[in-house]
Structures are given as C-alpha cells and as structure tokens.
C-alpha cells in the first residue's frame, strides 16, 4: 500500500510552496482584497502558468504537461495555503475539467491550450439565485447558437473569456431540458461585480444578451455532466481547503506560543491547547479524506462520487473550523483587518459557498451511502 504522494509529487509540493512563499505573500492577497478594481493578480497568474501549474493535468496534445491529477492536487493544496488570488480554480478545476469531460475534439483544441497558457480564463456558471440548480430554477436559454439570461454570483465572472453555463435547451421541468453551453464571452456578456465575503476571489453576476455559444456535451445532459464536473472540482477544492486549514492551524499554534496572558503563554492553557488539538484532528481527517478523493480521481474509480462528497464535506468543515478558531486564538487582534487571520476565514467561507453548500454535499454523500449499501 502506498496511500501517499510519491517522492516526485512531494518535490513538486516543495517547489510550489517555495514559489508561492516568494511570489504570493499575504500582501499580494491583500492587494486584490483591498482593491475593487482588480479582479485577480495577473502577474502571479502568469508566473503560475510559466511554472506549468495550470497544465499539470491537461494532456500534452492540448498544451498541458499531462502529469496527472495527483500533481494537480498537490498544487491545489499549495494554492489554498497561500490563498492565491487568481482564477486558477475557476479556469482549471471547473472550465478545463468541463471541456475534458464533455468537450468535442474541436472544442478542446480551441480552448484548452488557451486556458493552460492563461490567454483565456474560464469559469462555470450554474445557479440563477437561491437553491440547487434545477430545471425549475434555470431560465437562461440557448437557442440558435445564442444565450440569453442571467447567472448569479459566478466566481471570476468578470475575468472570464470562456463560460461553461447551465442552460435550458427545451421547455419543461424535466432534467432533460437542461444542457451545458460553452459561451464565448467576447461579446454579449455583461459582468456586474458583487461585493462578496472574500474579495480576494471576486465574483460577478453575468447577464447574457445573445452571446455566441454552442452545446458542450449532449443535449439534455446538463445536470448529469454538471455532477461529474462538480465531483472532480470537489476533490481539487478539498485540497485547496486543506492547504488553508493547515496554514490557519499553524498560525494559531504560533500565536499561542508567542502571546502571554496571566504570566504564561496562552498555549499553556488547556482551553486553547484543546481547541488547537481539535483543529489538528479535523485537519488530519480532512487530509485523509482528500487523499482518498485524490486516489479516486486519479484512477477514475467507481467510488469517486462518494469520495468526492466526503472530501468536500470534510475539507469545508476543517477549513471553517480552523479559520474561525484561529481568529479566536488571536483574541482582539484576530478581529482586525491588519492581522491575516480574517483572510483565511473569508476564504474558508468563500470556498464553502461556491461549488454547492455543505447541505447539498451532505445530501449527495447520503445518496451515495444509500447506493453503496444497497450494492453491498
């Protein structure tokens, strides 16, 4: 059994960590956070491209390195740890995966090399307001190669040139009335930025007014393709969450050693020690669940839907748990804009609210458990 990353992958992790420590210190995150006019750190994104990170899991014929998903997981963890303010997840975990899952050869050839090189930024636009996207709440329509409608709070919506959108291709409430569309955002798309919980990862409403689009995958397969895309993205995002959780825990531990109250280090009080120990436990469990997700993703295992939902719920819980208690450990300092603790808190909640809520993913997880047990 080798339920771990191999030596090359660990080397890649070290490289990515050193690179991001040098290129993505918290002041880089704040530069995006504090400036409404900047959608992402373009300089950093260009360097991530140069490092080959965007192409890690994309086949060589489409301009990638063709390494694999395990390498991409390793990179995702480091991006999460550094809170990288770039559209990596939207472009690579969502748009590129959508193309790899459902794209025709021509679509892949047209767009994947551009996503890898950073010439294009992609994203996924699914919901139009409250609730899990369904035929009942999806009005955006694809007709005669044009899309019309509005999608709500799309991650990196204002930066995207390529939008994978859930659209209606026939009327009615049946799941079969929905499909995926590949929308070229060069004309007919207006982005309206929203102020969101984590401005270092901008989001925008997208209004489509006759934008050119084509089907991605078969007509009527929108929801089933969406499931597949989200399962893959959930594993990759779980690594991002894991990286953030680990760093938030480290910050809390460091502060607990440094800060004195009542004549001793606050880390010598059990209320603090035990809180940090519990953060460690949730982070370790999330790590193990993410690794299992990585295994399922990289081997395209039948267990992927269960592994992905488990990694997603575990990763979300661990990051939220670690980031909120990191603030608690910091006391009043933790509530200032100046101390970095809130950057992790913001990101943990941003990640918890994009890609589907905990409630949705727990429900998916339970559905997989039902199936698993029936099969057994």
């Amino acid at each position, binding site marked *: *059994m080798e339920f771990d990353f191999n030596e090359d992958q660990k080397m890649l992790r070290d490289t990515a960590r050193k690179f991001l420590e040098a290129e993505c210190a918290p002041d880089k995150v704040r530069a995006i956070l504090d400036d409404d006019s900047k959608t992402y750190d373009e300089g950093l994104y260009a360097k991530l491209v140069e490092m080959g990170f965007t192409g890690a899991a994309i086949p060589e014929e489409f301009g990638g390195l063709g390494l694999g998903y395990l390498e991409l997981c390793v990179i995702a963890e480091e991006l999460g740890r550094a809170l990288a303010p770039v559209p990596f997840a939207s472009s690579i975990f969502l748009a590129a995966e959508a193309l790899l899952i459902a794209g025709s050869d021509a679509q892949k050839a047209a767009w994947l090399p551009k996503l890898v090189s950073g010439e294009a930024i992609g994203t996924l636009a699914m919901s139009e307001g409250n609730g899990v996207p369904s035929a009942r709440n999806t009005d955006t329509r694809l007709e005669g190669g044009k899309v019309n409608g509005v999608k709500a709070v799309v991650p990196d919506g204002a930066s995207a040139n390529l939008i994978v959108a859930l659209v209606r291709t026939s009327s009615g409430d049946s799941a079969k009335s929905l499909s995926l569309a590949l929308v070229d955002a060069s004309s007919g798309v207006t982005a309206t930025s929203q102020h969101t919980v984590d401005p270092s990862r901008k989001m925008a409403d997208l209004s489509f007014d006759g934008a050119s689009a084509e089907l991605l995958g078969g007509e009527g397969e929108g929801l089933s393709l969406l499931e597949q895309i989200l399962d893959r993205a959930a594993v990759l995002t779980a690594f991002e969450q894991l990286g953030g959780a680990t760093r938030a825990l480290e910050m809390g531990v460091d502060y607990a050693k440094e800060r004195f109250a009542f004549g001793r280090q606050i880390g010598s009080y059990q209320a603090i020690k035990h809180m940090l*120990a519990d953060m460690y436990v949730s982070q370790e469990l999330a790590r193990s669940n993410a690794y299992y997700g990585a295994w399922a993703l990289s081997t395209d295992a039948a267990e992927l839907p269960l592994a992905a939902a488990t990694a997603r719920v575990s990763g979300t819980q661990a990051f939220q748990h670690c980031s909120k208690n990191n603030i608690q450990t910091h006391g009043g300092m933790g509530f200032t804009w100046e101390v970095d603790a809130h950057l992790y808190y913001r990101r943990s909640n941003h990640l918890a609210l994009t890609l589907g809520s905990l409630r949705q993913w727990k429900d998916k997880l*339970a559905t997989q458990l039902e199936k698993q047990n029936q099969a057994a």
Partner: protein
Amino acid sequence: MNFDDTPEEAKFRAEVRAWIDANAPKHLDEMLSTSTMGRSNIDPEAFRAESKAWQKKKQEAGWACMQWPTEFGGRGATPIERVIWSQEEGHYGILSGIFLIGQGMCGPTMMGFATKEQNEELLPRLASGEDIWCQMFSEPSAGSDLAGLRTRAEKDGDEWVINGQKIWTSGAHYCDWGILLTRTDPTVAKHKGLTMFFVDMKSPGIEVRPIKQVNGNSDFNEVFFTDLRVSDAQRLGDVGQGWIVALTTLMNERLAIGGGMATGFPELLSFVQGLDFDGTPAIKDGAVRERLADWHVLSAGLKHTSSRMISALSKGETPGPEASIGKLVAGSLMQEISLYAAELQEQTGAIIDTETAPFGGRFQAMMLRSPATRIEGGTDEILRNIIAERVLGLPADVRVDKDVAFKDVPKGA
C-alpha cells in the same frame, strides 16, 4: 498513490489467508460477527477457552505475536506483516482481546528489562496463550497522573515487600502474571521514586476483587497487596527507573490500540437502511441523512488515516503520535452513534436484552461500553494534551508538583 500490496506483501497475504481459511474456528463466526464491545452470546469463561484454543493453534503454526523474536515464541515479522495478519484475521481477532495487554505491552516491557532466562521461560507461555498477563499501573489516586501512585515497595534482604492497592486492572481475576509499578522512594520527585516488577498473580499477599462496570460486566478489578514478597530478581530496570520502564509499556500501548478502531458507523448505516418512519424509509429523512453524512466523514477519515499509517509502516517508517487521533475520534463517535441509533428505536431503544432489543441490542452494548473507550489508555483530555504538546509543540501544562518530593505533593481525597 495506491492500495496495492508489494509482491512480497501479496505473497505473505496469500499465505496468511490460506492458513486462516484452513484453521479458523468457523463455528464461532455467528457469535463473533454480532459480538459488540465485549457483549456476546457466550459466557466469559467459555469465551476465554475459545480464545486460548485459537491462540495455541496460531502459536504452534508460527502466527502468534508476529513482531516478537522467534526464541520467545513470536515470528520475527515486520510491522507491515503484522498489519496484514490482523486484516486477514478479521473478526477472529476479537478472540485475542484478552491477550492484548500481555502481548502488546507486558511482553515488550519484559524484553526490554528482564533477563534472557526469564524471558525464555515466560514469554513463550504468553505467546501461546497458556498464560495471560495484566498491567497493574492505575491506582485509586493515580490514573492520568500515573506517577502519583502510592503502592509501596520496601527492600528486605534480596526481596521486596509490597503493600498498597491497584484499581481498574483489566483481567486480573484470570491473569497468571502481571507487571506492577510501585513507589520505592517517596522523598524524591514523583517520577524519580518509582520501580517496576513482574509478579506471579497467584502469590500469597495478592487479593483480586472484581469491579462491576456500567455495562454490567466485570472485566476490571481492584488488586490489593498485603506484605507481598517479590524477589529482587523480578525487578524490571533499576531502582528508581520505573517511570522510564513504564513509558516503554505505554508507548507500546499506543501502538497496540492505535489501528482501525471500531466506530459503530457500518452498523448504523445498515440499521438505518432497514428502518422506516411510518412507511417512509428513514434514510430519506433529512435529519438522518445529515447525521449519516457527518459521521461518515469521521469514520472514513479514520479509516484513511489508518491507511496512511500503514503506508508509512510499509516503507519502514514509524507512525508518530498522530496515532492518538484514532481513539480520540472513535470513542465519542461510537458514543454519539449509539445514542442516536437508540433514539431512532424510540422506546424499544431502552431494551438491552440481545434477544428482544432491536438490532440484537448492539447499539445498547455500545451505549454502555463506549464511555470506557474515552477513559481507558489515556482519557480524551490527556490525548488532547498529547496532541497539543507532542504534535503541535505547545507548552506543557503548569505543574505544581514538579521538583517537589512526592511526600509533599498536595493530594486530594
């Protein structure tokens, strides 16, 4: 990243599987597959006889005490071979429960500190299940704070005279030998005045009184020593070195307990799958689904954490104190699962008889046993301290008893 055996591991697994298939006590399958946390449908003495028979058979074929050297009755196997063995042994491993303390903790302590002759005489009998050993550490006034123990050993010629009391000693009522931690010098700081012995449990001067537990069983005991005489040759380690010796035992305890801990989750899932609420499947209920999802995350997380540890072993690395998360998570998980399952059973959840309780009373057995998991072998609070101090490097608790002679340390009732 893979779950595959190396070729050597696969070969070893095939050998283990074939032997178990040919030799396992299959007549016990039903009892073992429904036994839950020390509650099974055969009485403890018959259970012990089955345990001893299986142990003897394993030892004769070279499958006992996998990691011990062969001259002491073991196999000299690698840690990963031991893991493979226990994966393949499956529920027959439940039969080895009564040997766990002896083989997992007392044996390694003996190997570290007893003479070669003593080990050659005693350890093969421990390996074959002929003898069972216990660990006499905790006392009424010393559990988490083990080094606060008071049982006195005083030198008399080349013997020691021991007076005092141990408590919570698992298995003392049927054990043949035990290791015993005593205080030999109360005038020095508490960790410095301790000395370890091994003793014959049938010696005059030892009285064992079983304690009735919350779950109605009597697995642990009080042990009283009245002028118990022990030869100096049965001392383990130097006089005053007992704490160091005890740490060897406790380190092995963590390794013995660490692995795949039961959580009750598979039982819960299978119970819920067969349940309905007035005609609607329980598994369609939102509240039930949320609990299942949350608890699956914990139980899967533990399972995959243990796979990470096994991978480290397979590479010849030693898993660190991370292993402490297993018992910490599994103990309260099982407790919560058992309470919730009983809740889903409504009034019938109150029944504890195996025959009449829903689901064979397995959740009630968990409900009444799981509190112990959170206490034995290091309480939840002590485990959090260990994680905080040894894994995260946080400062130790403030100690008022540090560098104070034991006799002057403040003591409660």
